[in-house]
């Protein structure tokens, strides 16, 4: 009886350990862009999750948007039972940046573990992307121009009225 219970426990343990997962939490994605201004710097923080029972290693690669985005670190060890291993991505918009929208794309790869036994070894990963949208300085300029135009129109109206009054 003792042997039977021991055998069952070991099998269950193996099954539990074999169920592992890992993922990436994204604060911005394809339908949720990040809005920024010229000359501004922001840090976008992704998180790698690992609800499994063993630590996993991840490699992060910046695939698009290198002209404004940078990673300070590309290799991460993600402890088990966590979902807060932060991957900071720094984005800086130069003051003379000429694009209105820039796509940022990253790939998170799980490090492959040793040689596979079959023909095709498999590992997992995630493609992550979002747009950085610049607040349109041209629109702000238009608003300012409208105010100036209104003030000028007001002054012109006043001058016209004064002239008319003086003539009479």
């Amino acid at each position, binding site marked *: 009886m003792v042997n039977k219970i021991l055998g069952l426990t070991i099998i269950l343990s193996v*099954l539990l350990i074999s*169920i*592992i*997962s*890992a*993922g*990436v*939490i*994204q*604060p911005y*994605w394809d*339908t*949720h862009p990040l*809005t920024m*201004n010229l000359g501004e710097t922001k840090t976008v*923080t992704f*998180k790698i*999750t690992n*609800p*499994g029972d063993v630590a*996993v290693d991840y490699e992060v690669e910046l695939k698009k948007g290198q002209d404004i985005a940078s990673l300070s670190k590309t290799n991460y060890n993600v402890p088990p*039972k966590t*979902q807060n291993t932060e991957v900071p991505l720094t984005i800086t918009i130069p003051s003379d940046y000429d694009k209105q929208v820039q796509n940022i794309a990253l*790939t998170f*790869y*799980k490090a*492959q*573990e040793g*040689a*596979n*036994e*079959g*023909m*095709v*070894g*498999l*590992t*997992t*990963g*995630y*493609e*992550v*992307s979002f747009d950085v949208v610049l*607040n*349109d300085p041209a*629109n*702000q300029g238009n*608003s*300012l121009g*409208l*105010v100036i135009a*209104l003030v000028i*129109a*007001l002054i012109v*109206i*006043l001058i016209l*009225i004064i002239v*008319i*009054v003086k003539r*009479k």
Partner: protein
Amino acid sequence: MQRKKEVYFVISFLVILLLVSVVSAGLFDNLFKKTGHAPQAPQDVSVYVGGAPVIDSPTSPDPGPGYDPSDSFATTTIPITIEVTDTDGVADLPDGTIGLTFVVELSSGAIIKTPSGSFCTPTDIDADTRSYACNIEMNHYDPADDWDLYIYIEDSATNSDTTTIIDYTKYNLLSSITDPINPTSLTWPSLASPQNNVQSDNDPTIVVNRGNDDRHILIRAYNLIGEDNGGYSIPSTSFAVSDILDQECTVAGVNLNADGINTDTGINANPGPNDGSDPDDCDGSNEVCVYYCLDVPAGLISQTYSTTERGEHWVVLYG
């Protein structure tokens, strides 16, 4: 003299008219706003009639980074504290059953959440103000989006107040699939060169969506290199996949791209509740199977071909 007064009156009228037009057009809002999100700003509606309750807070979106789904299948708690004042005293307010809904609008319809147990924990702040601590429980598969908050409170005399906060808080996007993917490597029976339409003998790979990401499965495949003579290889374009058994070797199968280039398989493991199957199967709403087919090219010598020599595993990507 009278004429001058009339002119001054006309001037004053014109100046006032101009100022009113500028202000009512929201011009200064446009000038000083930073995000360009004015049309999405919170729409608070507060009505105060003597003795009626008034929702003091929240009145604006939660400025935090949002809330994260959990791929351990646990729910994520979003705490919301509501403060209400009633000049008739806190005794006039409900104990804990208040109207609170957390809503996201999707093209397929709205998803509505209410506080766990439909009850919020009341705490009296002073003689006429009461706070309600409410918890909204989010599932790992609830959609990533900005969620709206609607609050309704009614006192014992059926006087009421409502608050609507559009885009109250964000529920973030979680891409997560079970890992290691099962099986961890693919095999084929003994092959000849050439030989077409050979199915893997240990597929499918089972992909379980543990998050709320509703995108396709991509595969980054690499050429299989001969283990004895690396001058011979099976190109990644010799493989095709499908999520339907026996379709992988038909025209319905999706051919994989060249070495190292992602292939969008068009296969989607929808976000959904975990069906609890152990080991995973392909029956759950959040599970999908991928089947593999190989066309062995002509001219290969007899040896083992694999990803081992190259040292690059194929990557099953979600994205």
